[in-house]
């Protein structure tokens, strides 16, 4: 199992957006690591690029405050589970997930493609 969470600039709090979060926190087998999100500065299609990044990292569980429809479709195809973030600090979300306290995220927002 590999868990991912979008991280804010301070590298501690959960970032309210997924696609353009500056960092991702990964947690696997008790080891945590932080990586820059390559899609953070993307001009367009950040959602798809961030989704590709998380799929490539082999993420199986995603914890996030929100997620777009298209990205959700990618995650579903990749067999990833998505949970709704309920805490400010990423560490608290991780702990809550381990205790089975997070709910599945099942509301996904529409995309904002290009200039439309």
């Amino acid at each position, binding site marked *: 199992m590999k868990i991912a969470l979008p991280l804010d600039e301070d590298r501690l709090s959960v970032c309210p957006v997924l696609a353009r979060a500056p960092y991702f926190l990964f947690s696997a087998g008790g080891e945590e690591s932080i990586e820059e999100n390559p899609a953070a500065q*993307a001009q*367009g*299609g950040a*959602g*798809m*690029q961030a*989704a*590709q990044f998380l*799929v*490539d990292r082999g993420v199986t569980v995603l914890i996030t405050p929100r997620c777009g429809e*298209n990205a959700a*479709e*990618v995650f579903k*195809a*990749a*067999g990833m589970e998505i949970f709704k973030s309920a805490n400010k600090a990423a560490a608290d979300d991780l702990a809550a997930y381990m205790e089975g306290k997070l709910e599945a995220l099942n509301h996904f927002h529409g*995309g904002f*493609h*290009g*200039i*439309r």
Partner: protein
Amino acid sequence: MKIACLSGKGGAGKTFAAVNLAAVAGECCYVDCDVEEPNGRLFLKPEGLETLPVSSLLPGFDPGLCTGCKKCVDFCRFHALVYVKGKPMVFSEVCHSCGGCYLVCPTGAVREEPRTIGMLELGRHGDVSVITGVLDPGEASGIPLIREAVKRAKGLSILDCPPGSACPVMESAMDADYCLLVAEPTAFGLHNFKMVYELASLLGKECGVLINKQDAPYGPLEDFCREAGLPILERIPFDREAAECIAAGEIAAEKLPRYRELFTRLLEKIGGGL
């Protein structure tokens, strides 16, 4: 000659102008490029309808041939592709059908498959040949449909463009010889009007203005047109009878002589001749 009817915002009277121009123009084509909400046909009520499906190409991927190199994913500048579980996934509403992924794939795993995105509806209203683009609900880009619709415009043609000043408007007006800008004399109308004027001048089109629903001249709009050297061709006052025509799905120029005269004059000023 192709005359594009444009307005920066919906509700300014663009379809009203386009339909009435077509109605006084004799033998002509009316092309509804507002493919998301085509409503010229509500007034022109075309008869002898024929429909033609319009499709655009969408890539399909053969997992047996795909090696997972992700060249296609990296190439797609619209980010319509994501590589998941042994092959790329395509997001049809993001894909622009550019064919690039098909070209860059080293193993021939990409096929281009036609996918229906809407239809053209062809019919007649007296002398007017009515061409309507109708986009299927849920499709994000009507560009291929607009292209097909405009291609069928022959002779004197009135192009009823989508509202706003984004890509679909550009596509609709690109082949026009003249842009008729329909303006509403309000502050909000003026803002959108300036944007659509900018687009028309970017395309290098000759432009003229039709002011609709005018109570009294609106200073800032008059000043803007004067400074830009934009001719104001006609002014349509607020008018109960015209509004009643619209509400009843009728064409003012066919019911009210003063509108037949106004639109005939307008067409002459544009140079569409009679």
